[in-house]
Structure formats: structure tokens, C-alpha cells
């Protein structure tokens, strides 16, 4: 076959492959955004629950202060500091569960915390997975050469201590 026929076919294939790759990345970004939105919603609810616990008089003033401070920090942190602030809140909640008799006196509050924590664990694992997939794809040569990521921001890695989270439910 002559070269003049191959050239457009090759060009078409290249364009198709680039579009296909861009679509793939686009979906991965979308996946990361969805998982982040869900994770964020649960984190917000957790902070609100922590404030509730602190303000209902269910705990002593010192623990209440600790909880309030941690919850506010978690709410106000920007995305880069978020995981650190949320880990702080986890630690504060852990102290609450371990050191006070909340479990016995307010079982319904504790139950809500427990179910939120369980949902949080799944949301974190889905989000970490989505972010890793998107970041790994963006690192590939073809995405960098052709700037297939466009202006989409690099998904932020969320480092949450899964282990201390698990202790809350125990």
C-alpha cells in the first residue's frame, strides 16, 4: 500500500489513542473528585458530631475543650493540611472513647460515632485508591508530553492513620 494512505490512518489512530487516554484520565479525575466529596461530607459530619458531644455536657470541660479545638481545626484546615487536622480530631476522639465513660452514659452518641467511623474507613480507602490511580496515570510519559491532564489540579494524597481510626470502633 502506498504511504499516502498509511499516513492519515496513522494520524487518525494517534488522535484516537490520545482522546482515549485523555478520557481515561478525565474519568479518573472525576472518580477522585466524587470520592473526595463523599469523604469530605463524612468528615464534616464527624466534626459536627464532635462539637455536639463537647457541647451537650456529656464530657468534662478539659475533654470538651480538646474536642472543640480539634473539631474547629479540622473544619478550617485547607486541603493540604486537612489530613493532619483530621488525624488530630481522630486522636481527640480516641481519648474521648478510651478515657471517659461516654460509651456507657450516651450509647446513642457513641453508636453514631461508631457508624460514622466505619463509613469513614471505607470512604478513605476508596479515595486513596482513586487518587493513587489518577496520580499514577498522570505520571506516564504520554500524559506529560501531550499535557493530557490539561488544567486539572493534581489530586491531593490523603494520609489518614487508618490504625488509630480502627481503635475508635473497638
Amino acid at each position, binding site marked *: 500500500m502506498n504511504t499516502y494512505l498509511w499516513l492519515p490512518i496513522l494520524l487518525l489512530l494517534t488522535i484516537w489513542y490520545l482522546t*482515549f487516554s485523555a478520557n481515561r484520565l478525565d474519568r479518573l479525575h472525576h472518580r477522585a*473528585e*466524587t470520592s473526595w466529596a463523599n469523604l469530605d461530607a463524612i468528615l464534616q459530619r464527624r466534626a459536627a458530631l464532635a462539637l455536639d458531644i463537647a457541647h451537650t455536657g456529656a464530657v468534662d470541660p478539659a475533654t470538651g475543650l480538646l474536642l472543640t479545638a480539634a473539631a474547629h481545626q479540622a473544619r478550617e484546615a485547607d486541603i493540604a493540611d486537612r489530613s493532619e487536622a483530621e488525624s488530630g480530631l481522630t486522636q481527640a476522639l480516641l481519648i474521648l472513647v478510651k478515657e471517659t465513660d461516654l460509651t456507657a452514659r450516651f450509647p446513642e452518641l457513641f453508636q453514631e460515632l461508631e457508624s460514622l467511623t466505619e463509613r469513614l474507613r*471505607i470512604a478513605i*480507602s476508596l479515595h486513596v485508591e482513586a487518587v493513587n*490511580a489518577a496520580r499514577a496515570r498522570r505520571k506516564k510519559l504520554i500524559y506529560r508530553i501531550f499535557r493530557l491532564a490539561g488544567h486539572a489540579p493534581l489530586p491531593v494524597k490523603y494520609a489518614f492513620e487508618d490504625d488509630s481510626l480502627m481503635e475508635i470502633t473497638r
Partner: protein
Amino acid sequence: MKIGFVSPYAWDVPGGVQAHIKDLALHYRKQGHEVSVLAPASDESLIEDDFVVTAGRPVAIPYNGAVARVLFGPLAASRVRQWIAGGDFDVLHLHEPAIPSLSLLACSIAEGPLVGTFHAAAPRQKVAFAIAPLLEPVIEKLRARIAVSEVARETLRIHLDTDAVVIPNGIDVDFFANAEANPNWKRPLTMGFIGRFSEPRKGLGVLLKALPNIARVFPDFRLIIAGPGEGLEAMQSINPSLRNRLEFLGRINDSEKAAFLKSLDVYIAPNTGGESFGIILAEAMASGVPIVASDIPAFRYLLDDGKYGELFENENSDELARKIIEFLKSEEKRQRFSQAGSDRAKRFDWKEVSDEIMNVYLHARSENEKVTLVSESRSWNRLFSREDD
């Protein structure tokens, strides 16, 4: 919520994955959700469930050491497309999407809130490295992956380099716990085994080799074997004096299975491998029958390293005989494991498991999002999918 399930295997053939989808779909329907299942069917007239949409006749392919009856190809693809376009689903739950099947087709055709459940466990295979690049763009569309066991999760990690949330298979605990024993089966010193015993990996051979040792201590023991297969063939390998101790029931239905488990003194699971979850052990625990099982990874995980059932070294018939004799000797030991197992089984009840899966659905979608066809929103794909068909 409107939930679509895709089954890779034929609906009119009994199997673990189909049973899982059916139970889950019925459970959600009872809770007021709308469900629809897309599945292959060898004979459409045999399908009784009104929520099942058939997609055509499956073909038999060798897969993972067994014959899988699955369905794919252009005709199936157009059925999947129709079903998704007309379904208006909030979530699409694909089962076993990493094998050539309807689930894989659906995963490549759809986008949006997709959830995938991985059932199988397979050892590391060379071929995985060849197919992984083909599967990756499809599988990465899943917003959430569920593995039914740690073994399935590990399989997924090795083959596709992706992590999953572990949510176990579900069972109806009350159904097994409240079943009545069958007086024909319930006699002293009765052991039981359920499975396609002609498959070597089910381990019946290991159990049969242990029988002479057991007969030395308990000459009156009985072993009842349930499951499809030719009993006479298995009999050939047994000492003639032991043959009258064995009874073959053939295939049994769910109520018979519950009654069967209730009638036993001890349940034996001598499987030598290839098991991902071991739902029969969860069912046995729910019935309260004590278990002796091989120490393959799936069983070790399910029985928490021997806390909820006795483990013996895989394929070691002598140790199996020893453990069975210990069980038959001690009423107290049987009681203890029966109690521990009943507690453990609650973890696998559909009530809890279906809530966990619903939770994953909620995580997989953003508000008001629907499952759509890929080609609706991607002009290039539309152009090329015509040619692919």
C-alpha cells in the same frame, strides 16, 4: 434507589456468585429499592425471578481450572447497552468484572457510579501480566471495588495492582440456625461433607484416606456426602468393610442443606485449595455444627486461625483423622466450637452485609448521579464503537 446487577454466569445454573446476587437483590427489594439483574441463561423458560433480564445463551470456556459458562460478543454487548440505557440506574453492581463476561462488557460500556465485586481467588498467573493492560482501562472505571475475602483481595492486588474493600459473602443466619434436624440423618457419630466431590480440590480423597484411622476408634461412625457427582466412582477407592458407613445424597436444595447441617455431629471441609470464601463454613457455623477444616488461607481467615473451628494441615489425612477423633470423643469440645461458630456466623448475616454494601454504593456516587452509556457523552467513542461492533 435503583440498582442494576450484572451476573457473569448463567442464572439457571447453580453457583455461588448467582446465589449471592439473588440474595442481595431480594434483600434490597424487600427494603424498598428497585432491582434488576442482567444475566445469561441457557434456557430462558427456566427463569422464574421476575427481576431478571436475560441476555442470551452462555458459552462454556475453561477458566481458572474449571469450566465457566459465560456470555460475551457483539450481540450480548447490544443487549447490555439496551438494558443500561433503559434502566436509569443509580448504581450498577458488576460481579466478577475481570473475566471475559457480561460484567466486563457492562463495565466498558457504562460509566458513572459503578461498583465491582471480586469473588474469585487465583494463584499468581503469568497470563495476568498479558491481560492486565487490557483490563486496566476498564476496571479503573469502577468507583469502588469489593472483595469477598482477604484471599480475593490479594488476588486482585497481584493481578490488577488495585486495592479493594473486603465485605464478606452473606448468608441468612436465621434460616440455618432455626432449621430442624432430619431424623434419618441425625444419629450418633455422624460426619458430613457437601460439595462437588468429583473435583479433586474439594478434598474428598483426603477425607476418605482418614476413614480407616477413624474406624479403629469409632467403628460405628457414619459419613454422609451431599453434592452432585457419581457416588459409585468414589466408592471404588474405599476399603469394602467401610462402604456401608457411607451415604451419598446427591444434589440437595437449600432447606435440605439446612436440615442436613443441623443433623451432623461434625462438618468436614477438607478442600485442598482454590477456595476464595468458603460460604458452606459460614452456613455450618450458623447451624451450630462444629467444623474441622483444612488450613488453606480462605478457611484460616473465615475461622480466624482456628478460633471458630478446628484446622488441620492441608492434605494431611492422619492429622485430619486425629482431629475428627478428638471431636467425636469430646461432647464438651463440640459444644464449645458450636457456640463460638454461632457467634461468628452473625458477622455474615445479610442484614449486616447488605448494609455495608449499600454504604459502598453511597460512597460510589455523587448526588443525583446516574449510570450512563459511555458513548452518550464521548463523541470519539461513538464513532469507533460502531466499527467495533
